[in-house]
């Protein structure tokens, strides 16, 4: 197997339970984003644009959709003869079998995979962040600092710093202390969950971490603090662009809206750093003769006949005449019927909203059964693969999923064409 200087490992195993029904049957990195993307397109495209051609994707929870989305890696030019993309699930060995216990354990279990490429550096990336980053520069900074670990950090407002892992550094940028969600943060340099390690160093730290029964085998919680404690050379790398963890319904919604309202921040139109995705082979989108569209993003295969404002319209979405949509995310393949009204609504893939359905924060007479602590600020989430029956009225902060079908059979049904559970039909 050919040597590779850098191997990237993307942590894509988490369930993402705060996204509720959106991740019932698919892993979080496979959730659609920004009309034509999936979340994982961002780290994969960053790898491609940074010239990194060997990428392991660590999966554990509901990997089928992600597996079939990534396929042979062709869409990201990662179908390489040496290297390329590899889906890395947990496995059995002679010593027995284990699921990935934590992020560090997931890498530990795949030491033989990484060893096979004899890399100098290993990047550990998250599968659920929206950002554009040249990892090459980060590795260069790692090399320049003669670091053993380098952690990408971003400045956050000091008032929000207590929500993040905060890095306290000396004058040279060397980390002297790491505080996870400190009550009184000493500064505002938040870890982005993007790490660069010298492989030989990480390898031995992982083996040691694995032997420690008190460790939770987590990078942020165990590996990094252990390295700092011991005085190993841990540095920060400052990143200044757009970065967002889309782990909650609100942050997913906001990050999508940022595409419309702050288009220069995560500039998707920058041809020097394109975000690649698996393209549906569909015709151009069509805006009908009586459609009204203002401040929307839309892509292949969509057909809009109704009114759509401040919304993200995914591929193969149909908005029928007389539908009225504002501040919403219509995920790929969804259909919005005549006269339906959606406001601050996230509609899952291949879901059908029948005519005259109303989903609005201000719905006074809506059902309270659907209220969910994961949904805030009036945002409602409809699961993928559903049918919302004509006449349903759903208030804000709702999370509507297959679990409700039993109790509301007249309002909800599963979309029988939505085969293979989370599977995309395109």
């Amino acid at each position, binding site marked *: 197997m050919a040597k590779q200087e850098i191997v990237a490992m993307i942590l894509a195993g988490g369930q993402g339970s705060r996204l509720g029904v959106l991740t019932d049957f698919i892993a979080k990195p496979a959730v659609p984003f920004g009309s034509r993307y999936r979340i994982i397109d961002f780290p994969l495209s960053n790898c491609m644009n940074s010239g990194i051609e060997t990428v392991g994707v660590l999966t554990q929870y509901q990997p089928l959709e992600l597996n079939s989305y990534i396929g042979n890696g062709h869409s990201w030019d990662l179908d390489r003869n040496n290297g390329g993309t590899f889906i890395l699930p947990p496995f059995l060995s002679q010593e027995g079998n284990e699921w990935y216990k934590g992020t560090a354990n997931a890498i530990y279990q795949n030491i033989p995979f990484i060893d096979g490429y004899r890399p100098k550096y290993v990047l550990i990336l998250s599968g659920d962040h929206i950002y554009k980053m040249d990892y090459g520069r980060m590795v260069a900074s790692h090399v320049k600092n003669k670091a053993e670990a380098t952690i990408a950090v971003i400045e956050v407002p000091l008032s929000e710093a207590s929500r993040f892992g905060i890095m306290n550094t000396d004058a040279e940028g060397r980390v002297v202390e790491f505080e996870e969600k400190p009550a009184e943060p000493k500064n505002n340099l938040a870890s982005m969950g993007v790490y660069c390690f010298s492989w030989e160093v990480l390898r031995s730290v992982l083996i040691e971490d694995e032997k420690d029964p008190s460790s939770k085998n987590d990078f942020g919680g165990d590996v990094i603090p252990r390295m700092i404690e011991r005085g190993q050379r841990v540095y920060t790398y400052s990143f200044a662009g757009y970065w967002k963890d889309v782990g909650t319904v609100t942050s997913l919604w906001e990050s999508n809206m940022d595409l*419309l309202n702050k288009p220069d921040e995560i500039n998707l139109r920058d041809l020097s750093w394109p975000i690649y995705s698996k393209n549906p082979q*569909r015709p*151009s989108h069509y*805006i009908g*003769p009586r459609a009204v569209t203002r401040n929307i993003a*839309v892509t292949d295969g969509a057909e809009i006949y109704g009114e759509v404002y401040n919304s993200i319209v995914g591929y193969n979405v149909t908005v029928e005449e007389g539908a009225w949509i504002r501040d919403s995310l219509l995920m790929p393949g969804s259909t919005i019927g005549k006269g339906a009204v959606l406001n601050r609504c996230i509609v899952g893939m291949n879901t059908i909203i029948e005519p005259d359905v109303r989903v609005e924060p201000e719905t006074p007479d809506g059902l309270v059964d659907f209220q969910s602590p994961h949904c805030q600020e009036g945002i409602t989430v409809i699961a993928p693969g559903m049918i919302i029956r004509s006449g349903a009225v759903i208030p804000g902060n709702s999370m509507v999923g297959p679990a409700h079908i039993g109790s509301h059979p007249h309002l909800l049904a599963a979309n029988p064409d939505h085969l293979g559970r989370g599977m995309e039909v395109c």
Partner: protein
Amino acid sequence: MLTDAMGLILADNRRIQLDAINQPRALAAVPFAGRFRIIDFTLSNMINCGIKRIGVVALTRYKSLMDHIGTGAWWDLDRIRQGLYLIPPYINPITRAPDRTDAQGIIDYVESGRQSYVFISSSDYVSNIRYKPLLDQHIASGADMSVYYAPDGDSAQTISLAIELDEESMIRDLMVDYPGARSQLNAFGLLVISKTLLLQLLSEMMARGIAEFSIVALLQLYKRFRIRALEYQGLLFRIYDTASYFEASMRVLDPQVSCQLFSTERPIYTKVKNRAPCVISPESGKVRNVLASDGCAIMGEVENSVLFRGCTIGRNARVTNSVLFQDVQISEGVTLDHVIVDKNSVIKMGGKLLGQEGYPIVIGKNSIV
């Protein structure tokens, strides 16, 4: 699935002129319907029928075509066996002039395939077409070749290959580009023939020093061979001049028409470009009856138009009944009506171009107007 057939696309049609549009590229590589090229339809028809081995004969101006087709990966033709073969012109190594015959490259391609039948298609029409009925009829009728025809009598389109049929639906007369032809049956460029017969005919051509290989040349053998013709009843746009191109482009705006071209079961594949989603800005004007593509940014008003990838429509611009190729920039305040603008062209601030129905204005590639 037609696994026993290979495909052969004649991407060159030297008889056709689309003014500025196909001057820099083969007709097969002319953009169509927002994100496709004309050849995409024939390539996709072939793979949707199960054909996994396709040769593309290109003689001139084929750089654009090669760039578009690439490794064939977008049509899933980047295979170890079978897949895509670009058949280049033969050039004599001594004189460096093209060899007397194109036929040798085609012979090599056809001979090395295992399949028994060859579907030969020109690339001057747009359709989503099933090949199986033609092959079934071909085999059932015992014909030597079989070809589809469109009953063009009620169409505005010119009949270019008027055929007359006998009672067995075999061709008994053929008139090329003849306005006085009695027949309204218009054969178009899709023909099936056995590998054996095709190889025999190609060898004869070479021996006789005939330079040009085309569908018409094969059909003209109707006296010597039994050529079965089968009516094709689906949607079909033949592209033979600027007006027919423009008309077809406008008709695709009708969802009733486009759904016949873009079936979910038989998708039309094209080269993927990773452009951002199209953005219609908050200050845009009316955007109605528009086919638009990724990477477009619409700040002005657009009606009854086709926008290819990466077009920008500036504020207060008004684009109607027009076709804008990739990366065209329409500046603030421009007015366009009945215009075709080729790739990368820029219409500068305040410009006004008004064509007429049936006679659109054509702005060439990389122009600044």
